[in-house]
C-alpha cells in the first residue's frame, strides 16, 4: 500500500519555521513601539544609546510620525530600557519555543 496519504497528512501538519519566525519578528517590531509625551517611538539600541549619551536633560526627538517631541531624558531612558528589555525577552522566549515546533 502506498504511503502517499500518510506523507500528504504529514506535510499538511508541518509548519514552516521561517514563516512563523518572520511573523513573530513583525509582532515584536510592533510591540517595540512606545509612546512618550504624545509621540510614538520604536525603541532600538541606537535610540537608547543616543538618549543615554545626550548631555542635557531635555531634548527633542523625531518620532515615527516625523514630529519633534520634547523628551525628558531620564524618564524616557528608564522607560525605554525597561520596555526594550521586556519585549526582547519575550521575543527570545517565543523564538526558542518556535524552534522546537515542527508540526501542529
Amino acid at each position, binding site marked *: 500500500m502506498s504511503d502517499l496519504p500518510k506523507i500528504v497528512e504529514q506535510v499538511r*501538519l508541518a*509548519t514552516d519555521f521561517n514563516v*512563523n519566525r518572520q511573523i513573530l519578528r513583525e*509582532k515584536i517590531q510592533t510591540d517595540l513601539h512606545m509612546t512618550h509625551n504624545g509621540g*510614538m517611538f520604536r525603541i532600538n539600541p541606537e535610540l537608547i544609546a543616543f538618549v543615554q549619551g545626550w548631555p542635557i536633560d531635555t531634548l527633542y526627538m523625531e518620532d515615527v510620525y516625523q514630529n519633534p517631541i520634547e523628551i525628558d531624558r531620564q524618564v524616557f531612558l528608564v522607560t525605554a530600557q525597561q520596555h526594550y528589555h521586556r519585549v526582547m525577552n519575550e521575543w527570545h522566549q*517565543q523564538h526558542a519555543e*518556535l524552534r522546537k515546533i515542527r508540526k*501542529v
Partner: protein
Amino acid sequence: MQNSAKSEKSRGVVIFATNTAETDYVSIAEQNARLIEHFLKLPTTIVSAKDTGSNQRFSTDTGRFVEWKNFGRHEAYEASPYDETIVLDADYLVFDNSLLGLFECSFDYLLFDKNRYVNIDQQASTMGPHSLPYIWATAFLFRKTERSRLFFELVAKIKRNYDYYRLLYNVQEGNFRNDYAFAIAHYILNGNSLATESFAPFHILTVTGAVESITASKNLVLRTPHKGHVLPLANLHIMSKSWLTSPALLLLVDQCLENSTATLVS
C-alpha cells in the same frame, strides 16, 4: 461654582456587523466584544449600519459569491457613542492591546495601510496598477473632531458616486469597498497627498481561505487545509466566515480568556 476639571474623554470600540442570509456577523462581533473587554478593557458597541447596500463577495470558504452588506462604514462618526473610537470589522479579532497605545498619539483619524497575509504570498498593495495605495478599513481609529467628520462625509460622498470616483482613481475592482472609499477620501482630504502621518505604524495580520482550527495558549496555533502556523498572540483578521460562525470561535474565546486568567493567577 464653576467646575474647571477637565472632563475625561470616553473611549470605546465600535464593531460593524450586519447579518446576511449566509453569515451571522453579529454573533462573531459578540465574541469579539468579549476579547475586547479582556484585552483592551474597553466597552463595545455593535452597529448594524443603515446604509449597508447589498453586494456580493467571493467566499473563500465555499468558492462562490455570497451576499455582502458592508457599505455603511461612513456611519461610524454618527454611530459611535464615544469621543475616541476604535472601529473594527467583526472578523478582526483582538488578541492584544496594541491598538490602545495608538491613542497616545495625536491624530484625527488613524488608518492601516499595511497588511500581512499569514498563509499566502503577499498581494499587491495598490487598488489597481495605476491607482492609490491600499488602505484597510478593517480597523481604524478616530476622534470626534471636525476633520474626522469631514473625512466620513467624504467617504459617504464617494460611496454615493462610486462609479465616478472609481474611474477617476483607476480602481481595478468593480465592487464598492470601504477600503477604496477610505483611500480616496484620505487622499482628497490631504490635498492629494498620502499623508502618512495618518497611518498606524504597524500592520494588520490576515488569514485568508479556509481554516480548520485555531487554538490559543501562549501562541495561536492555526491549521488550514494545507499548512500549520504558530502565530504570536496578536490581533488577527480571519476571512473564513464559516469558521467564525462555527462553535469553534466560542471555544477559542473561552480558551483565550481562561489562559489569561490562569497566567494572572500563577
